[in-house]
């Protein structure tokens, strides 16, 4: 009763190769997620990313509306267009999530990050560090005879560039806030 001829070794594909071949290029997107600031909401968002195998490049969160108890979570993530769409849809499913905005596709936006960078050392390196900090408009917020702490605000790649320059000059510690972002113009 076998009406079919099964071709042996027909395929190397499997049902787990779930992504179609189109749109495979990985993109970086910045998502703004407005949530009720209730217990566990951040765990829900992070759990979604870890549970479904998505990437988090950067994540910032703080309450932005104290009376309405709303927090804004800014997530920078990477994935193929289909994965990015899934991430947005999955975020939208979380009950305390009010709104998900993809700042990367919804018109121009500004992205800023703040970093505190400690550079230790003396002599010429110390002078050079100060000179570069001036070019990058980094502020000195703490100084000792052997160290500076710089405060720098800017797009993440500006901070990357500054940190790279500081590395040979004695960069010893760095703290970054992660990206905060807003769309440009009227909302």
């Amino acid at each position, binding site marked *: 009763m076998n009406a079919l001829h099964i071709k042996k070794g*027909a395929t190397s594909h499997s*049902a787990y190769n779930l992504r179609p071949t189109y749109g495979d290029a990985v993109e970086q997107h910045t998502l703004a997620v407005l949530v009720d600031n209730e217990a566990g909401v951040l765990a829900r968002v992070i759990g979604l990313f870890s549970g479904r195998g998505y990437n988090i490049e950067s994540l910032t969160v703080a309450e932005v509306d104290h009376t309405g108890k709303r927090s804004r979570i800014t997530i920078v993530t990477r994935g193929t267009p289909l994965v990015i769409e*899934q991430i947005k849809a999955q975020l939208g499913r979380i009950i305390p999530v009010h709104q998900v905005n993809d700042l990367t596709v919804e018109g121009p936006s500004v992205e800023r990050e703040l970093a505190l960078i400690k550079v230790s050392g003396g002599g010429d390196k110390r002078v050079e560090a100060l000179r570069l900090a001036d070019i990058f408009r980094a502020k000195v917020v703490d100084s000792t005879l052997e160290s500076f702490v710089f405060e720098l605000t800017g797009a993440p790649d500006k901070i990357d560039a500054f940190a790279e320059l500081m590395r040979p000059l004695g960069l010893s510690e760095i703290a970054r806030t992660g990206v905060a972002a807003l769309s440009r113009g009227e909302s």
Partner: protein
Amino acid sequence: MARQMTGAKMIVQALKDQGVDTIFGYPGGAVLPIYDEIFLQNDIRHVLVRHEQAALHAAEGYARSTGKPGVALVTSGPGATNAVTGLTDALLDSIPLVVLSGQVPTFMIGTDGFQEADTVGITRPCTKHNWLVKETDDLPRLLHQAFHVATSGRPGPVLLDIPKDVQFATGTYIAPPKKTEYRYQPQLKGDLEEITEVIAALETAKRPVFYTGGGVINSGPAASQLLRELVEATGAPITSTLMGLGAYPASGDKWLGMLGMHGLYEANMAMHDCDLMICVGARFDDRITGRTDAFSPKSKKVHIDIDPSSINKVIHVDYPIIGDVAHVLEDMLKVWKARGRKMDREGLAKWWQKIDGWKQVKCLTYKNSDKIIKPQYALERLEALTKGMDRYITTEVGQHQMWAAQFLHFEEPHRWMTSGGLGTMGYGFPASVGVQQAHPEALVINVAGEASWLMNMQEMGTAMQYRLPVKQFILNNERLGMVRQWQQLLHGERYSSSWSESLPDFVKLAEAFGAKGIQCSDPADLDDAIMEMINYDGPVIFDCLVEKHENCFPMIPSGKAHNEMLLGDASTEGAIQSDGAVLV
């Protein structure tokens, strides 16, 4: 109307106000105040299960057979952790459950107190939403919200974790607000422009097929009714997932049978060759699609789903429609009628000819025997002898489950309860308890495998205590049959741990609980034995000794396309390549 009462009393009051008549649970230290309140009233019946996992599955059975949310009550720590499988099962099958768990008092949280577990942490990924209730005054609002979230949009399980001091303390009770007052309001109406485009595609389609799922049943009785109307009016064939059986009647002449890994040949071939696929409340699960890059290559695809995250998750679709199935189907019918009830009748007739050819393959044919009961035969007889009865079927997980889906026929929604997404062995028996509790007069049968059934066999106690005459129809092949089948096909017939050793004497086991046991091994005795089971007024364990090495066909092997289906033992040799073996 605001009233002062304890948290424990609020819980019982809120359940009443939400129309709950039955809850399934198991007591413990952290829920004693709630049990006290249950003791003091008569409106809500509490069914004492024998294991918290069973409370959840029973609540699922109750929910799926009634369309109402199921409610379960468990204690903190081990009570809550035992509930995890049931929560996950309900999440994957989109079953509305409200689960209440006790918790150590708020001032002890974080101290590793006796029977403390981070229940909201543990259950966060396996609930639609959960809450730790820290104030008694929050309790009524969250209780009502729990019901709203569980039942709105894509249904699912929710959990409220309630510390003991919150249960004891007094607060202000509020009655349920109107549904419209909640912020959580999933979109019900589909986009009319998109729907019109779908109808335009349907009018000219030469090979359309409806592919329906559990979402039709979850949407309510109107959805099944509208689906039937649309299918009859357009004359297009229809298939369904395991979850959607009964939404369209199996006796309907447009019915192709179930699709998927163990679906019918004609259903899978129609999916593969169609030019327009209309997916209604299903989610392109891997049991359905097989090899995704070979899935229905020639079709335009419509996807109707209330959950936006289901769309384009696995398969790219051409017409996404976000909305409730009943709402969307209603609009589809309206638009189709308004545009003049057009279909490509000639194309359809040819399509049906092709389908009739596939039907001639008679893919469910099996070699019967007069010496040994074939599992397929047992189910054919069960179907014949219970046809037309007020009948509900639950199943466990394995070969018997797939055979039940193939050989039992469902005319209505809510009559078929099986663990689809999670594939939970041990689901069927407690689910049958929940179904019978909701439908005391009906014939409730759990089609089981001996191995699955043992996973929650303690529920015999519950069935006896509450006089729930559930019939446990065990297709006993003394094997973890589905595992054995895969080992035969994939692992060189090395049957590693897939035997059911040391099985109990099921007849004596039944008698030990005070129930009836029936054993049958001769096909000639089968009809009488089944009738004896049906006619017995009380729980029955039916030990049906069946062929031990029967395989379940048709089968789309892992990593294969729909048109590469195996139909019988002769075609299995070398069918699954080693790359398919990594799949489950």
